[in-house]
């Protein structure tokens, strides 16, 4: 029962990692861009949620309604003004520019909010749990978080395969020149993809802020978790990111149980083992 508990905790944490990963996977799928600032944008969303909840006095989970559109607007503007100019065959420009963004966001947040740890208070829901069986309880908040992750991924999947904009995403992903000839404005399509990605980032940022303490420096580690989930799941597969997140969450939970110092290490090692055994991931869809 003890280990079952630990594995369930890991699975539910994996939902959060899948939220980190879904946004990364989306933009990589559409425009082959790896956003080094992804983790810092998650932290930025957490700080936006902090501002919204403290000024309006609403529940942090409700703040998503405001934070998600704001982050989406930031994403659209960022892609239109900056990131579109870095796309091409060379992988250095996007890498360097998003690295620069990462440094800018970290130090900007440090300047505005200091290095103090913050946390969002979500009320009694934080400690609530659902009793499943004797000795087995599931936290309400982790369960909500995992459910939201599933809904977000199902939603992205539906947008990708059922809507006109999803068709545009897939068309530009397959062949940007032909998509342009068919009348799509790639710059706009890419900006919409980034907006969608950062809307997901906003949801991830709010859950991160409710679950744990955050400060301006924790972004890069979230980037790595998200990235690892993307690769474990298989390039370009949205449901794969959920599986990847779960693998990572369970590995960390088991590692933490053996020795607290091994929590993060176990996750990274699980990732490297999968790279060694199956570098294309568990459910690959597109070629990197």
């Amino acid at each position, binding site marked *: 029962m003890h280990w079952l508990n630990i594995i369930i905790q890991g699975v539910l944490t994996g939902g959060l990692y899948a939220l980190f990963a879904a946004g990364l996977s989306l933009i*990589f799928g559409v425009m*082959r861009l*790896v956003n*080094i600032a992804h983790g810092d944008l998650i932290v930025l969303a957490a700080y936006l949620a902090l501002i919204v909840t403290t000024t309006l006095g609403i529940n942090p989970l409700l703040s998503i309604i405001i934070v998600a559109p704001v982050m989406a607007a930031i994403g659209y503007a960022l892609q239109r003004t*900056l990131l579109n*100019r*870095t796309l091409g065959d060379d*992988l*250095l*420009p996007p*890498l*360097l*520019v998003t*690295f*620069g*963004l*990462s*440094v*800018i966001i*970290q*130090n*900007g947040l*440090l*300047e505005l909010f200091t290095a103090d740890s913050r946390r969002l208070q979500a009320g009694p829901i934080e400690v609530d749990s659902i009793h499943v069986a004797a000795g087995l309880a599931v936290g309400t908040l982790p369960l909500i978080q995992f459910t939201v992750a599933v809904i977000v991924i199902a939603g992205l999947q539906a947008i990708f395969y059922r809507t006109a904009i999803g068709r545009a995403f897939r068309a530009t992903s397959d062949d940007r020149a032909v998509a342009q000839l068919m009348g799509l404005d790639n710059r706009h399509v890419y900006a919409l993809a980034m907006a969608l990605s950062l809307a997901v980032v906003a949801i991830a940022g709010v859950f991160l802020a409710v679950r744990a303490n955050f400060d301006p420096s924790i972004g*890069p*580690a979230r*980037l*790595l978790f998200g*990235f*690892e989930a993307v*690769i474990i799941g298989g*390039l370009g597969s949205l449901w794969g990111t959920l599986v990847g997140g779960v693998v990572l969450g369970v590995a960390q939970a088991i590692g933490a149980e053996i020795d607290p*110092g091994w929590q*993060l*290490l176990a996750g*990274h*090692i699980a*990732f*490297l083992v999968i*790279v*060694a055994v199956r*570098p294309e991931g568990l459910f690959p869809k597109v070629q*990197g």
Partner: protein
Amino acid sequence: MSAVHIEHATPSSRIGTAILIALGIVLALAPVWGGRDDLRLLAEIYSYVALASLWNLLAGYAGLVSVGQQAYVGVGAYVLFALTMLAGVHPLAAVPIAGVFAATLSVPTALLLFRLRGHYFAIATWVVAEVFRLLAAQISILGGGSGTSLPAAIVTSMAGSRTLREFEIYWVSLALVILVVGAIFVLLRSRYGLALTAIRDNELAARSNGVDVTRTKLVIYVITACGTAMVGALIFLQKLRISPDTAFSVNDWTAFVIFITVIGGVGRIEGPLIGTLVFFILRQMLADYGSVYLLMLGVIAIAAMLQAPKGLWGFAANRFGWQLLPLERRVAPFEISKTSSEN
């Protein structure tokens, strides 16, 4: 028969080489003309020139864009602390051992990382650096997560007086940067250099002309790891204090190094020299602003990448055909055919 001859030197490279030699002599005499702070600043500049030159070799020439070179800075630093504190090795002797250790470690690491390409390779190098950082935090004899300081006895054993010790570290730093840049120069002049330049310009074309791309990349990865670890060992010998977070810092040892190289010019041996100068001039100007300075640096790096993707030196080289070191290969058939006919 030798109708075709390859020339490397150009007028600008003759001037450049003369300037570099003169600069080397002036810098070697820095303990005579400079104060304690000057020496410390210069040694730090040398570390960044060396780190950026190595990253440039890796990413600019071999096309291996790594964002995890802090892995080897940290490994070098930890090996130095471990050898001196636990095995009683002389600190300066520990520097090359750190390089050999990192080179050995980099072979299995490369075999794993090379399974991923492009962006995925890049971020996986960062994961490896994180693994090294977390493992270093498990070494309780070196202070675990909070790190440790080099005991005073080890520091004083290096030389008789503090001044002499500072001179010693300064000269070793200068020697190391000359060694690193010199080794890269020799490498680029060799057949490997030709293979590397071919890979830099077009990997597919290089492969189809018979360049063993994977092997060349592996060799470069191992050489870079070795050099980076030696520089890392020396940096932390000067800091005298180590912790997993500082030794494996992605911002200090990778982000800034990439910014330097991009501002100076990727894929050119002169790029890191120019980039480091710009980096330190900015730092001296903006040092009082703390985190705003780092923010500005991010802005400048982005602007440089968008406005001058080949960097300052790339711009100068394209515009004026300059080169500081004789690296170009120019076919000089005409004069040579005259001299060869005299033979």
